[in-house]
Each structure stands twice: as C-alpha cells, then as structure tokens.
C-alpha cells in the first residue's frame, strides 16, 4: 500500500462528510425518518439538472442551490401527500422521490447533447477525484498544501450543521421525541421539521457531489443507528455517530485500496467501501448488544421478567434517560 497526501485528503474529505452527515442523521433516525435521506438524495436530480442547465457549469453555487430547493420541496410534497391524502409516510416519500428522479432523468437526457452530466456520477460520486480539484494552496512551515474544494465545502457544511444544532438544540430535541409537547411548549414542530429537512438536503447535496448519494445515505443513518445502540443520551449519540463516521471513512479508504489487491484485483470504489465500513461497525456493535443481552439473560438478577426489561429498553429509550 502506498500512502500519499492524496489519500490523506480523501480520508479527510470522507471524514468531514461523515461528521456533517451524523448531525442531521441522528435526528432522522430518532424521528423514524431514516429513508428521507434516501428520498432527498434521489429527488434532487431535477434540481441539479435545472441548476446545471441554467448556468452550464458543474461546480456552481446555483447547482447546489437548485438541489437544496428540490430537497426541501421533496420534504414538503411528502408532508402534503401524507397529510392531505392520508397516505402512509413511506409511500408518499416513495412516490415523490421516484417522480422527481424520473423528471430529472428526462431533463438530463433531453439536454444530453449539450451537457455532460450522467446520473452515474450522482449515484456513485467520485471521492477519489476530489483532491484534484484544488481551491487554495496553503503554506505551512515551508511545505505547500493543496486544499481540495470538496474538503472546504464539506467543512463549511459541517460548521453550518453544528451551528444549527447548537442554536436549536432544545427545540430539535423536544420535537424529535414529542412533537405534541413541543407544540404545547410553543415550539413550532413543523418549522423544526422543515429546518431538519433543509439541513438534510444541504448536507446531502454538498456531500454527494463529492462522495455519491449512496455514501450519503450510509453516513446519515448507519453511524447514527450504531450510536443509538450504544447510548441513551442525545449529546453522546451525536458525538459518537460523528466519531464512528470518521472511523468508517478512514477504514473505508484503506480497505478500498488494499483489500482487492489481496485477491489480485485493482483497487475499488472508496465511497462504496466507506458505506461497507459503516455497516461493519454497525454489525460489530449489534453483535455486542446481542451478546450483552444474552449474558444478562443468563446471569440476570431475576427481579424483572426479561420481556419487560426488553420492552422498556426498546420503547422508552432516550426519552427516559433525557427526561
């Protein structure tokens, strides 16, 4: 394995993406809206296409803005269909994102002779290419460091998400656990919902330009779910999921350039392997909790019936610990 500054930047970019995703991801998992990340990342395609058609460049702010607007629209359409049509939330999500994706496909193919944008780069991303797109050169202690644009963008998004979460921590927390209580306390639960959705959309858009939509979904949900298995406290969960995401990013890139060579193949997609790494961490923690449960079942005090303990653990969860 040959490690270069190039590889360091890939890991840093992946790590920044993971940390940026972890913040909205925790709230999505807690609010049972994990699939929203999936829906938004598919549904922003027409926004990307329109932003692209209007400006003609792939790396413009307009493209990002177009995609973010479509992302929020996805959340709104889903909310409307769920509320006015009385349709299950999962189904309305599916209807909205497939329709918007189809619209985006048509826009892209209609413009295919003029522009160079294929859905493939949206799905897989190209994190390996991000260090080539340099935005600034820093000089630290005599050595020149080329800073890739993706790292700057994702760092900015991470900062933005951090500020939003810090500023609206209480509001986001209460509306995640108990929207009715939030409304009763004078917090606009629906506004919080849309703020969370906007945060998810911006993160998704900024991230998948660099790392692809699948990696975004993995980074949004899997570390957050893993962290939830480990803790009952929201601040700990937020920190843990960011940390787990960063570890997965490093692990993913290392395994992408080493693992296939053991079997005599070339290296493979880093984004894909980062997603696999999050899955690996999740499985480890999952097995650990199962093992712990088994140990408790055999050496348990016998004061509580096991079913009772399990149910309390599952349903009350964070709310109980944070109350």
């Amino acid at each position: 394995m040959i490690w270069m500054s190039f590889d360091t930047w890939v890991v840093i970019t992946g790590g920044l993406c993971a940390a940026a995703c972890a913040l909205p991801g925790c709230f999505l998992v807690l609010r049972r809206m994990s699939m929203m990340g999936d829906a938004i990342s598919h549904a922003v395609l027409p926004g990307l296409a329109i932003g692209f058609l209007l400006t003609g460049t792939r790396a413009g702010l307009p493209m990002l803005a177009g995609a973010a607007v479509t992302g929020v629209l996805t959340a709104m359409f889903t909310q409307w269909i769920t509320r006015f049509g009385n349709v299950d939330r999962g189904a309305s999500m599916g209807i909205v994102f497939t329709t918007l994706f189809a619209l985006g496909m048509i826009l892209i193919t209609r413009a295919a002779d003029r522009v160079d944008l294929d859905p493939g780069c949206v799905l897989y991303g190209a994190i390996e290419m991000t260090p080539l797109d340099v935005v600034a050169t820093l000089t630290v202690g005599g050595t020149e460091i080329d800073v890739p644009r993706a790292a700057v963008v994702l760092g900015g998004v991470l900062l933005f998400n951090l500020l939003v979460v810090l500023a609206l921590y209480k509001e986001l927390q209460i509306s995640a656990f108990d929207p009715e209580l939030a409304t009763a306390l004078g917090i606009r639960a629906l506004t919080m919902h849309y703020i969370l959705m906007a945060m998810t959309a911006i993160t998704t858009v900024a991230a998948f330009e660099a790392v692809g939509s699948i990696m975004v979904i993995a980074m949004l949900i899997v570390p957050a779910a893993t962290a939830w298995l480990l803790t009952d406290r929201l601040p700990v969960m937020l920190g843990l999921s960011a940390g787990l995401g960063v570890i997965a990013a490093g692990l993913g890139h290392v395994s992408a350039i080493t693992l296939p060579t053991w079997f005599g193949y070339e290296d493979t997609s880093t984004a894909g392997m980062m997603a696999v790494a999050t899955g690996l961490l999740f499985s480890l923690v999952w097995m650990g909790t199962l093992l712990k449960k088994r140990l408790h079942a055999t050496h348990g005090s016998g004061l509580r019936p096991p079913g009772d303990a399990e149910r309390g653990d599952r349903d009350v969860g964070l709310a109980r610990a944070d109350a």
Partner: protein
Amino acid sequence: MIHTGTMTEWPTLAEVVTVLTMQNYNTRLVTLSALTLGLAAGLIGSFLLLRKRSLIGDALSHACLPGIALAFIAMVTLGGTGKYLPGLLLGASLSGAAGAAAILLIRRTTRLKDDTAMGIVLSVFFGAGVALLGIAQAMPEAAAAGLESFIYGRAASMIMQDFVWITAVAILVIAASLLLLKEFALLCFDEDYARIQGWPVHTLDLIMLGLAAAITIVGMQAVGLILIIAFLITPAAAARFWTSSVRAMMLLAGLLGGLSGWLGASLSALMPGLPAGAIIVLMAAAIFMFSMVFGTARGLLPRFRSHRTLTRRVGRQHLLRAVYELLEAENPEALANGHVANIKIDCEKLLAKRSWSRSLLHRLIARALREDHIDYYNGRRLRLTESGYGEAARITRNHRLWEMYLITHADVAPQHVDRDADMVEHVLGPDLIAELERNMRQREQAAIIPPSPHVITLAPRGGGA
C-alpha cells in the same frame, strides 16, 4: 421513427394507433413487459402499502446489487461469460434474501425501527455492490458494462428473454397473492389477531417479502431500479383513493399499474429521445395525482365536498334553532297559537345566542334566504317563512329529544346537555329519531315540541355583544 435533432416531432395519429395496439415487434415486447410488470407489482404493492412497508422495494432492489456483482465475478472467474442471466438473477435473489432477513432481524433484536433497518440495509448493501462492481469493471472482460442496466434499466432494448422472465414471475406473484389473499389481508390489518389465531405470521411475512423481492429483481434488470420502486408504491397508493375494500384495491392497483406501464411505454415509443422508465414513472405519478384529487373513497375533492355539505347543514340547523328559541322566549303565546308569520327577529339578539361571528351569521342568513327559509332580511331584522318555521320547529324538537335522551339514558347533567346534544344531533338519522320518539312518548304525552330541559340563556357561551 427516426429521432431528428433536438426537437421531437409530434407523431401522427396513425403512428399513435400503431404503437398503442402494439403492432411493432419491439414495441409490443416493451409494452407488454411494462404492462405485466405493472399489473403484478400493483397487486403485491397494495399489500406492502397496507402493511406500511412501501419502501421495502427500495431497500430490496438496492440490496440485490452485491449479489449481481458477486455472481458476475464468480462466473467470470470460473471461466463463463459473466452475462448469463439466470446466474445473475440467482445472485440477486440470494443477496436480496440476505437483505430482507437483515431488515427483519435488526427490527426484532434492536430498538431500531423499520425505516432505519431498511436504510441501513439499503446503503450498506448498495455500497458493497458499488465496491464489487468497481472490481468487476476492472476485470479483463469489460462486458460488465451490461451490469449497469440493473440500476438504470434498459426498457427500450428489452429482449424476449426478459419478457419470459417477467411473465413467469408475474404469474407466480399474481397466483400467490390471490391464493393468500385472506391471510395477507389479515396480516396487514391485524397482525396480533393473526398470531392469536395461530397463523404462521413470520412465514407469511417472508412470503410477502419474497414475492415483492421476486418482482423487484426481474423488473429491475428490465426497467431499472427507480421504476420498479415506483411500480410497487404508486399504483397501490392511487388505488387506495378509490375504494375501501382490499379486493377491489388490489385489482384496481394491478389495473392502474398495467395502465401506466402500457401508456408510458407507448408514449416513450412515440418519443424515442426520452427514457422509457422515466416516462412510465411520470405516467404512474399522473394517475396518482388524479386519484388523489378525484378518488371517490378518499380523494380530496369528494372529502372536501362532503365536509362542506356537513358544515352547511350544521350551520343551517344552528341558525334555525337559534331563531326558534328566540321566538319561544319572546313570543310564547304567538308560538303556542301558531301565529308566527309576521314576527321579526332582531339580529343582534341572534348574534348573542351563539359564539358566531357577524360575518358567519350573515353568510348563514344569506344561504337561508336562498333556501327559502327566510323571506325578509334587512341586515338588522329577519323573518322566517312558513317552511323555515316548520324546519326550525323540527330541528328544535330533535335537539330537545336528544337532550332528554342524554339526560335519562346517558346520565348527562342538564346543565351540560345542550353542548353534548349540539355535537351529535346533526348526524341523527330518521330511524334513530323514530326510536327516540318512541322512548319519549311515554314521558311527554302531550307536547309536540317538548320544552327545553334546561334554562335557555340568550348568550350561553357568556360572550357575544
């Protein structure tokens, strides 16, 4: 048809007829495949919708990718072509099954919910698939390019083999859903009851997921991942707006799925510049939107209309009863003798009767004028017509009968009964009124309109002018 330049030429009528009746071999293949797929996916999709698992198709279709890539790598390594369809489908089924099992396991053994379990499986499996595809594409046989069709589909270039696979699986899915209709329906509506009845709930769940997975896998390599997800969700959700019976919903979902497949495939044949899968998705979405607005069972328009009818009826009843009670309070002897024709009612007093706004009262009076219940209104005073008086008496009578029923049979205190009766009286059916009358006849022999069982205040809410 030749696609010329950037402008799509509008097809002639003859071309439209040719395509819709599937006279061209290639069009026929694509259209029939889309139709069959839509039919079967719509059927199984309605169960998934009722079970609130619509997005399972999304998760399963992504979960198939690593199996496809692994099967390709394995077949190439063993010296095969790597493009052998049954082999790829077997790989897809195995990893799809692993994904489904993982979802069920995560849900059962952790505190994570369905949506998170699906998200985890979807993203991790797809990531693994992308990584494996990265390896496959670097292999000496660059034929891996064909694997991309599993993601985007290749609806426009379908071959006979695809159609045969789709038809076979569709027949299996349709037959199984019809055979297990009762079991699936019970599983959707009351899982606990099914379990208590001793039915193998987990097995049934697995069968349902298996059928969805089968149609997802054959559909996805033909028409692409996004289209098959839309086929599983959209027609079923559209059908739900038209009916409340499971059987009818299933049939309708199948029909709507088939219809959007047929129309969408035909349309894309007429406009060859556009991707067929996307057109079909948009067709299904259009059908969904139409159903959401006009659907007879749960559509927006019928619901809005029935809500408006009810609001109007309630408004009319409130107005007429308020007028009657004012008459009763101010001119008891005229009312007793039946000489009410020329008595005018002061609107200010009417306004104080209930907590209604001036503009609402004005609107109610305007409607009553049109309905011929009121024949005189100058903004300050109004007068009832003969029919308006009759209607007011009838409404007041119903209200009081209901109040008395609540007091004697439901132990509601007389001071509270006005509001309780207010909330239910508007939905009293004629037979219920007849029964109430029978009940009351023994008590109130003489009075045709019983006196109010409580004191009628002129401003019962304590508010008003």
